[in-house]
């Protein structure tokens, strides 16, 4: 076992970070105050303002009558693209505080709308055909590959509240204002593959999502495009709440990648990979055999979903076998699909399948939920650099469990894979492979 060689726990650093995190939470109020000043500078007399919009947001409450909006970093137009959630946030090393700061800087100019037919209901108009007005402008922002100049007319002043929920999937949202109108101030640049999926209204959404992924679009782009109702067969197109869209894309692309690995050879040794980001530690154990996946989450007392400092460690898990799962996960929500995608991307790159256990330890440093991108990027980047190797899956689990706040026996009760790895009948025929014990 070479696990010890590359894992160090920086105890002092963690304590320092926790102290900073506690202070940062109060900083949100300051960010909102800053926003008010920038907004006052930007808005002209009749509540009309010009900005540059990198993204959109579709709410999910009261579905199908949702609120849908264009996001603009008022007063920060010069670097608008850094306000959009993306893989580059990890590379940039943004902190939890940075995420909240960026989100409090994004004004969500929104309108209530029926997801099926856009602003006008009952006249048979599908969201697919709605190219004018607010929805049209929103769609253009979503399909463009860079921030788009827009002019937005508001009905009154923005509401400066900040929506900190326990939602682990969508990035937190900032100030909101009811929009009267939105107009494009430029002709947006739309990549050719996106035009192709947009124009083909006979193409099922899943196929279109996978096409875009294969053409090099990251899930962040695909999520935005799906959310705006720009993918799928014409009659099925509708606005998709951002939160649902994120998981739908992670799941769809994950299923596609899993399919490509169905007959792939297996990894040939038990590997342990690790990464830590924003108070979340991830351990990924890959073992030889056919595809099997499980995410086990351990949430420390005092962390965002387990706020009572006196409560015990909160453990959740979900899993799938070789054929995948049919229902939505019960305990781990979007983190399951995001981490599964990250693992499948790695396996696809090396052309192997594996039995894969992801252990997520959320420490009390994680004081605010920043969105599921954090899980996706942390696990994606876990496969950089060195990894440990173990003789067996069992020894790998025990070594990792020593560094986790739960015992191996607790883990065995909660984790199907720790309890036992599924063998195949071929492992027991003379012609078949050897049994992985």
């Amino acid at each position, binding site marked *: 076992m070479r696990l010890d060689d590359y894992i160090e726990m920086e105890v002092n650093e963690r304590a320092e970070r926790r102290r900073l995190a506690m202070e940062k939470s109060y900083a949100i109020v300051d960010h909102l105050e800053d926003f008010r000043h920038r907004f006052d500078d930007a808005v002209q007399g009749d509540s009309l303002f010009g900005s540059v919009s990198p993204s959109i947001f579709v709410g999910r409450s009261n579905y199908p009558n949702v609120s849908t909006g264009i996001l603009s970093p008022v007063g920060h137009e010069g670097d608008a693209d850094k306000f959009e959630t993306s893989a580059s946030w990890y590379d940039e090393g943004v902190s939890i505080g940075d995420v909240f700061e960026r989100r409090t800087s994004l004004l969500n100019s929104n309108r209530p709308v029926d997801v099926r037919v856009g602003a006008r209901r009952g006249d048979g108009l599908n969201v697919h055909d709605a190219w004018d007005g607010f929805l049209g402008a929103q769609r253009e922002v979503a399909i463009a590959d860079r921030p788009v100049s827009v002019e937005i007319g508001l009905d009154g002043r923005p509401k400066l509240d900040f929506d900190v929920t326990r939602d682990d999937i969508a990035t937190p949202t900032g100030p909101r204002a009811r929009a009267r109108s939105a107009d494009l101030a430029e002709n947006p640049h739309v990549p050719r593959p996106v035009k192709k999926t947009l124009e083909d209204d006979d193409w099922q959404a899943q196929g279109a999502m996978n096409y875009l992924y294969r053409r090099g679009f990251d899930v962040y782009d695909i999520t935005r495009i799906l959310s705006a109702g720009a993918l799928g067969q014409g009659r099925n197109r509708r606005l998709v709440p951002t939160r649902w869209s994120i998981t739908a894309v992670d799941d769809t692309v994950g299923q596609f990648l899993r399919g490509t690995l169905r007959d792939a050879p297996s990894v040939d040794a038990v590997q342990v990979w690790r990464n830590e980001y924003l108070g979340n530690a991830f351990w990924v154990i890959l073992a030889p055999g056919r595809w099997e996946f499980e995410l086990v989450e351990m949430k420390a007392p005092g962390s965002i979903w387990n706020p009572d400092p006196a409560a015990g460690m909160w453990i959740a898990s979900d*899993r799938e076998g070789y054929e995948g799962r049919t229902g939505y996960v019960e305990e781990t929500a979007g983190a399951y699909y995001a981490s599964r995608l990250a693992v499948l991307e790695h396996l696809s790159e090396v052309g192997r399948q594996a039995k894969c256990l992801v252990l997520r330890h959320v420490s009390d440093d994680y004081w605010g939920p920043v969105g599921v991108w954090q899980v996706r990027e942390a696990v994606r980047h876990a496969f950089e650099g060195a990894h440990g190797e173990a003789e067996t899956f069992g020894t790998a689990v025990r070594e990792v469990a020593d560094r986790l706040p739960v015992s191996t026996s607790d883990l065995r009760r909660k984790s199907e894979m720790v309890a036992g790895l*599924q063998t*195949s*009948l071929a492992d027991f025929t003379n012609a078949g492979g050897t*049994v992985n014990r």
Partner: protein
Amino acid sequence: MFKAIVSASTLRDALDSVSVLVDECKIRLNEDELAIRAVDPANVGMVDLALDAAAFESYEADGGVIGVNLSRLEDIAGMANAGDLVHLELDEETRKLHIRIDGLSYTLALIDPDSIRQEPDIPDLDLPATIVLEGNQLDRGIKAADMVSDHIALRVDEDEEAFFIEAEGDTDDVDLELGRDDLIDLAAGPANSLFSLDYLKDMNKAIPGDAEVTVELGEEFPVKLHYEIAEGMGQVTYMLAPRIQSD
């Protein structure tokens, strides 16, 4: 050539035992029996079915192989009342199966057998313990285990001469002990293996409550479950690969 008449209930019992594992399968129309062997896509669970010619009202076959969509064939069989007779006849020219039930006739398009997953090699296992019990007893253990966990341990205690069905959940445990007196028969041996409940539940669904089930078990080895249908003129064997414990 294939032409047979069979009672709807026998046909349904036979199809059920296979359809819990796979959606489509090859049916071997041997001269003396109808045989199906199939494995699920993950190669974890297998079924081996033989329905003797004697289980049919009449049976003529010459060793052909057909591929069928099981859910469609089950749907058709479901149109019959338990006592109805089902007439089956293969049209070699059109590769279709003609099915007649009390005036209702249905033509089922067949699947090219070569397009169906290969029949598995049966692992040649010498399992040290054999337990014979009623379908109902197995069902009770599986139902209780399913309340707390996704996996189940089947174990024989040689000293106590007892068979145990056990499950450990997040917080709760289930334990069903069946001593020699509770069982129809027991040949004790070292046996303790863990299985996925997803599979075992599906297999259990097809096993009639009053059937006599023979369980062959080893230490971290596949389990074999045998039972009879059609008044002893049909035999079903399931084989299920274990989950191997990580210690």
